[in-house]
């Protein structure tokens, strides 16, 4: 039966059909839905781990125990999990182990545009790269076969346009593989120098065998063309753009395996065409391999290193007609993403901005605190960096910065990699102030549970880590909780903790307003007779408030009655909403 299926759902289906039993992942756009779809299959145990390294190691443990396992992450998550990945290349697997990694060219929801294919080459593990949902399903199953046949973890590389596009797939039944016996094997699984030295030649030999497999594997195929003036080597979503533009005009070598690459297949293809052209998004991985073979080609000298490709871009570079459209003369104001009306982060960022605090930020919805008019963020780097960096910042500048610099980090990001930074502050003694924005969920990726929420991926009750005793046990005497809807309380807390002679943690606690169980208040309204048009309420950047005819106006369809704007109004022009007491 054919179904229209999201690429990530197709991966989950492939895992299911392949008999995968254990999945441990950390959410990250555009990889999140793989695990969210897989949890719908009762045959698969699924969990959200605190971070990608933990997830990958949990999946490794499951494969060691003899069951097919999987973990998913976004491209930057693979940096976090790179440590186990490189050595898992040496140990190999017992039952099959597949690692899903999703790149985000164009940075729809990411802090960089790194190309995960480098990891396959660097860690010497094979990588499959589907170009639509049907391949996502098929390659997920193939990945397990390769993993067990060649004794290796296998990377399954998605990108935004494959992960978040729906296309047709054919479903099959699940095959339930027998649990592999676990046998103690110190030489294979205990990677201390004496053993690892003996495993390294195995890794190199495995790559040679995988390369030989890639020469004739159906995932790498030549599609004939009528005109051999140009021959295109391509993969992933770039393949789809090339076929869209060229149809069957030029021959295409479509690579479904991103690493290792098939030398003979590439050489033979290059010899059959006049001008070899490599079309790949981001970095020149295929191109550099071809150049290492001494092949002349057109690649990144013409195609960009940055951003997503499209059919118009490929058409322009390959000499096909480019489509254009109409425009109007008026400038169209941009519509950047904004913090939602009633977002609990807004009040806190307003206070940080008002007090001219230097804010070292982190990864999550609250990164939007950097956007005007709040503009309350000075740095965002990677998961957990806010806390580590505020310590370094304060060590560099001493008491001068300690009294006016904070780290802000969300609850999920704190559990991901904030705790070790906190330990560093306590251990190496900077007088740093850390604000944990606890909205009781992983927000940006679409509401995933985490170790502080008390619920599992299925929404069932789970272990719950309380932030206050955790921070205290990491060496912080000053831990206080504040409601970010209460501006005065936030102001006092920030000023007092920055002035305090020892490090402190402020937990700004209020659940994400988009959570279904959060009760909102009736919308506020502005009394135009009272409003003097001073724009004080505009300083919080709430999408529900606009100035109309010189007076503030609240959009009742957006307002959730959080009352933050009301606290800024000097003439009490806001009415309704939350009742006092």
């Amino acid at each position, binding site marked *: 039966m*054919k179904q*229209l299926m999201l690429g990530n759902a197709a991966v989950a289906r492939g895992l299911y059909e392949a008999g995968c039993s254990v999945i441990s992942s950390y959410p990250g*756009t*555009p990889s*999140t*839905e793989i695990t969210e779809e897989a949890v719908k299959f009762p045959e698969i145990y699924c969990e959200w781990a605190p971070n990608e390294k933990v997830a990958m190691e949990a999946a490794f443990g499951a494969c060691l125990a003899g069951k097919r396992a999987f973990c998913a992450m976004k491209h930057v998550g693979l940096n976090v999990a790179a440590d186990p990945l490189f050595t898992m290349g040496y140990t190999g697997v017992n039952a099959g182990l597949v690692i899903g990694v999703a790149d985000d060219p164009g940075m*729809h*929801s990411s802090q960089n545009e790194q190309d995960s294919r480098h990891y396959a080459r660097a860690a010497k593990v094979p990588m499959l790269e589907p170009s*639509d949902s049907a391949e996502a399903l098929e390659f997920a199953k193939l990945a397990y076969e390769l993993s067990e046949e060649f004794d290796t973890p296998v990377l399954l590389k998605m990108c*935004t*346009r*494959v992960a*978040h*596009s*729906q*296309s*047709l797939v054919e479903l099959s039944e699940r095959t339930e593989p027998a649990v592999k016996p676990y046998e103690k094997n110190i030489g294979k699984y205990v990677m201390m120098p004496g053993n690892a030295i003996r495993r390294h030649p195995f890794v190199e030999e495995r790559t040679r065998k995988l390369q030989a497999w890639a020469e004739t594997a159906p995932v790498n195929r030549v599609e004939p063309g009528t005109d051999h003036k140009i021959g295109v080597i391509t993969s992933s*979503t770039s393949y*789809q*753009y090339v*076929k*869209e533009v060229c149809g069957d005009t030029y021959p295409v070598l479509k690579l479904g395996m991103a690493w290792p690459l098939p030398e003979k297949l590439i050489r033979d293809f290059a010899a059959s065409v006049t001008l070899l052209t490599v079309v790949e998004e981001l970095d020149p991985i295929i191109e550099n391999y071809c150049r290492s073979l001494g092949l002349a080609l057109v690649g990144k000298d013409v195609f960009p290193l940055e951003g997503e490709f*499209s*059919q*118009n871009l490929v058409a322009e570079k390959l000499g096909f007609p480019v*489509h*254009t*459209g*109409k*425009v*109007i*003369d*008026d*400038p*169209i*104001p*941009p*519509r*950047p*993403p*904004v*913090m*939602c009306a009633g977002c609990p982060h807004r009040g806190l960022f307003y206070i940080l901005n008002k007090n001219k605090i230097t804010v070292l930020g982190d990864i999550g*919805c609250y*990164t*939007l605190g950097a*956007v*005007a*008019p709040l503009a309350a963020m000075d740095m965002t780097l990677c998961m957990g960096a806010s806390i580590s960096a505020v310590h370094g910042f304060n060590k560099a500048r001493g008491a001068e910065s300690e009294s006016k610099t904070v780290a802000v980090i969300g609850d999920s990001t704190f559990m991901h990699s904030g705790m070790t930074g906190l330990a560093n502050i306590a251990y190496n003694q900077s007088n740093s102030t850390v604000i944990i924005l606890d909205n009781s969920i992983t927000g*940006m*990726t*679409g509401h995933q549970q985490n170790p502080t929420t008390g619920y599992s991926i299925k929404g069932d009750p789970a272990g719950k880590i309380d932030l206050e005793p955790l921070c205290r046990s990491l060496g912080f005497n000053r831990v206080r909780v504040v409601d970010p809807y209460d501006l005065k309380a936030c102001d006092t807390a920030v000023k007092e903790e920055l002035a305090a002679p020892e490090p402190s943690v402020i937990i700004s606690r209020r659940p994400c307003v988009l959570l279904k169980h959060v009760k909102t208040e009736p919308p506020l309204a502005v009394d135009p007779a009272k409003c003097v048009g001073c724009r004080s309420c*505009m300083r919080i*950047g709430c*999408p529900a*408030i*606009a*100035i109309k005819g010189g007076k503030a106006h609240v959009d009742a*369809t957006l307002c959730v009655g959080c009352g933050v704007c009301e606290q800024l109004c000097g003439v009490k022009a806001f009415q309704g909403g939350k009742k006092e007491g």
Partner: protein
Amino acid sequence: METKNIMIVGVGGQGSLLASKLLGHLLMEQGFDVKVSEVHGMSQRGGSVVTYVRYGDKVNSPVIDKGEADYIVSFELLEAARWLSYLRPDGQIVTSTQQIDPMPVITGAAGYPENLVEKMRSAGAKVDALDCLKLAEEAGSAKAVNIVLMGRLSHYFDLPDEAWQESLKAIVPPKFLELNKKAFALGKNA
């Protein structure tokens, strides 16, 4: 058949996902190859969002590029204008007349352009503009704007009404079916 292209554009959170689900179901049932491309994550937080729906004998690219859209279905006027360059020379815009100020307009850093429907028409675009919010409320819920728009879009399709009704039934929860049928009819007959 040559691949046809429909773009659904709007503001994050307006319900474009259900519209693309309806179209995906409808076109697959007609035996077409279909691709639907969405964007998740940060872009959804009140930002400009776009969904691509493509169908035909064989669809390759999951996205629609400039000058390629046969239809642009827009939940919001400024978003229709933002994506205008993606319309084919003979393409059709179906838009709600709702206006939602983006943050640069709210803060006063930019203005919301006036008379956008007329300006898009003078640029040579075919524009079908209607107050979908009002029609959705008439059907029983402001959230049914997406189905009002689908009803209006069905106007331009050479498909029997039953095909649309069956897809509606397949993707809308039973308790909201009557409401959505009404919203669909109001859009279609507006």
